[in-house]
């Protein structure tokens, strides 16, 4: 699932305060944790704060870690909480009702252009990548964090639910809504590219 399998780390050594083992853990996970922070917050300085706070808290709480989830899921949990807390401090758009994103209100796709036939080189240009990032930034935070953990970091539904303290059903609902929002956004963007392509 991740770049590194956390079973490679000795929990016994980590909990005994072995600094070399903790340094190995940091080395294995600083990139994905930074990435989660960056994509959640859209700012490299804030992402670095998330990174440092995550590992400082991990260091502090390791003695109490009970191993009910994997070490990586636990690190993602700390990082996701840090990022969400920073977003709240910034007073960005947070749904008043945290459960609003689990509602059964139908999200009906409105963009129905089939842009899959665009030439392959159109999909991952620098401009396209910026649009992909922008589309993530526009997601409500509660959907964004689920999408990032599941589809970018590759956590399973169960691991995502453990990391966020949500039921698996809630994770699945939020993931579907996130994917639908992103598909809608990308359809607007690539649909225009397709029109431009066809006009040539």
């Amino acid at each position, binding site marked *: 699932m991740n770049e590194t399998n956390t079973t490679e780390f000795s929990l016994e050594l980590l909990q005994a305060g072995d600094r070399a083992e*903790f340094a190995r853990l940091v080395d294995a996970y600083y990139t994905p944790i930074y990435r989660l922070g960056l994509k959640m917050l859209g700012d490299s300085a804030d992402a670095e704060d998330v990174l440092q706070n995550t590992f400082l808290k991990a260091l502090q709480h390791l003695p109490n870690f009970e191993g009910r989830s994997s070490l990586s899921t636990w690190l993602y949990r700390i990082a996701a909480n840090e990022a969400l807390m920073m977003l709240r401090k910034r007073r960005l758009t947070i749904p008043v009702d945290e459960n609003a994103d689990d509602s059964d209100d139908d999200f009906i796709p409105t963009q129905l252009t*089939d842009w*899959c036939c665009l030439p392959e080189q159109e999909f991952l240009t620098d401009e396209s990548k910026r649009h*992909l990032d922008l589309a993530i930034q526009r997601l409500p935070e509660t959907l964004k964090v689920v999408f990032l953990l599941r589809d*970018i970091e590759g956590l399973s539904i169960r691991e995502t639910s453990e990391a966020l303290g949500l039921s698996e059903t809630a994770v699945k609902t939020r993931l579907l809504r996130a994917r639908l929002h992103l*598909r809608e956004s990308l359809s607007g963007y690539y649909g225009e590219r397709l029109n431009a392509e066809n006009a040539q």
Partner: protein
Amino acid sequence: MKSHTHDCRAMLADLNDYLDGDLPEDLCAELENHMRECENCRVVFDTMNKTIYLYQSCGREVDVPDGARTRLFSALKLDDFVAPGN
């Protein structure tokens, strides 16, 4: 999806499980039958699949800024372990 039929709504609800390979075989067959008949749902499925593919292809491309690892190790008082990576 213009018509918002019951089948279209069911397709949307099952889309994630289908894409993630978690949908039971009989429901997969139902969904595939529906997509053969409903052009809008086929487009939603194909573009959703492509959306996920694009994010999974480039979503991990992030450069950690120069010095961030060193600053992190320093904040954790692990300066003596900073050498291997930076």
